[in-house]
């Protein structure tokens, strides 16, 4: 069943158009990846889905309901949650408090503090430390954990690998497998193409704010991805 359906989505920053008629579908239970170069509109796309940018009501359908233009809190209530680019950990809050902010709306589901600590034991060990005392990879765990605390049906994850060592990224993707096993659908944005081809069932490649290529990783050749990615 289609969980998220995006039709002809355009988005603007003031007069600047960042997205040009994006159409995309995510089926419940699958992992979909959006790849593309810097400035292709990937982050804008996720922010538009999460209610951080104004979008027309009919452009986004979630669980059969038109949700375009709804506020972020209303979307979190429906189970559409974004793990933002750059992690955005709250510096005044401890690790535990950062996680609890994720549970602010109180949406029921499998994810609790204990469950997140089991997924990322390190967060449990450091629960009373300020969130920003953690290393980059640990902060990314915290950001994912904070998103999970909202008990999302669809978790949008922006640039997991940003500034992190390959081994750390690998561990984070392994954790996402466990998230998926819990029944959460994932839409990830990534620049690290090889990483994403291994975990995603379907891939969309963005270029200049539009979809340049889409398909299952097995059916996409490296050449086609490269051509869509760089526009050569």
């Amino acid at each position, binding site marked *: 069943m289609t969980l998220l359906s995006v039709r002809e989505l355009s988005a603007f920053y003031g007069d600047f158009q960042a997205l040009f008629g994006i159409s995309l579908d995510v089926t419940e239970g699958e992992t979909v990846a959006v790849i593309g170069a810097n400035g292709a509109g990937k982050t804008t796309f996720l922010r538009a889905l999460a209610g951080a940018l104004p979008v027309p009501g009919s452009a986004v359908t979630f669980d059969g309901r038109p949700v375009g233009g709804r506020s972020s809190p209303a979307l*979190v209530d429906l189970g559409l949650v974004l793990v933002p680019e750059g992690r955005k950990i709250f510096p005044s*809050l401890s690790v535990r408090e950062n996680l*609890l*902010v994720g549970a602010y709306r109180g949406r029921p589901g499998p994810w609790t503090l204990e469950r997140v600590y089991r997924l990322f034991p390190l967060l449990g060990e450091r629960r009373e430390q300020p969130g920003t005392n953690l290393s980059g990879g640990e902060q990314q765990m915290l950001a994912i954990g904070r998103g999970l605390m909202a008990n999302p049906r669809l978790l949008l994850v922006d640039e997991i690998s940003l500034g992190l060592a390959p081994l750390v990224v690998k561990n984070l993707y392994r954790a996402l497998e466990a998230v998926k096993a819990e029944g959460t659908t994932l839409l990830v944005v990534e620049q690290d193409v090889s990483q994403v081809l291994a975990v995603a069932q379907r891939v969309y490649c963005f270029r200049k704010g539009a979809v340049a290529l889409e398909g299952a990783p097995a059916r996409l050749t490296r050449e086609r991805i490269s051509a869509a990615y760089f526009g050569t």
Partner: protein
Amino acid sequence: MAWLDTIVQGILLGGLYALFATGLSLTFGVMRLVNLAHGDFSILAAFIAVVAVQALGLNPLLALVLVVPVMAAVGSRLQRPVLNRPLGRGTPPAVLVTFGLSIVTQNGLLEAFSADSRRLNPGGIETASLHLGGGLAVGWFPLLTFAVAVLLLVGLQILIGRSAVGRAFRAASDDGGTAALMGIDNDRLYAVAMALSLAVVAIAGIFLGIRTTFTFSSGPDRLLFAFEAVIIGGLGSLWGTLVGGVILGVAQTTGARVSPGWGVLTGPLVFLAVLLLRPSGLFAKSRRVD
């Protein structure tokens, strides 16, 4: 002994200043709003108490039960249509909007209550005192004011430090955009913060009205004291606000003891000294303010 008396009176006066400063500190901390109408809202609360006392024959201290919720409702209702608009556009728009509110409030009060000075009479407690021996006596009312200030600060500290709303306050203060992505409705949260701020300043206004006379134009002076207490204590620290209020109170009573005219001067002098020596205040949390 006379000096000890002066200092004790100053400390207790500091409790009143802390009550004025707490709400100001709260709204600045949560939403970076510098509320120039803060003092006027305290006077508005005092006038509402005057009406309650006249119409219902209430003791002004009992009128708190009525005035505090009324002022909280005023704060909550004012936030969304008026005070949310300038947020996130830098300091000048917020200063203009609250400066405008200050003028509107003062002139509204002038229109409704004339320029006569008023006082709230709680029926004796304002002059009763507790004799501590050795010629030292403290008034019951200043003692009550100080105790209420401390209790309120303890309560707020627990609210901000331990509750979900408190976490949301701190998260929104750190990064409002990300807080919204996590499901925090900033508009509603800011309305809660403003309601809290005006609830506390309502208490301050009524205590002020019991302690001394006030007119429609008494607000800006109160705002100045509140600002000084917040800055002396350091932004973002509630206990710092109490200490700031106490330092200000002691400076005033000590100055007034030296010469009656000096009381109004020594407070601001201490404030300037703190600004010179420790510009971020005595207990500022080491975090950026932008």
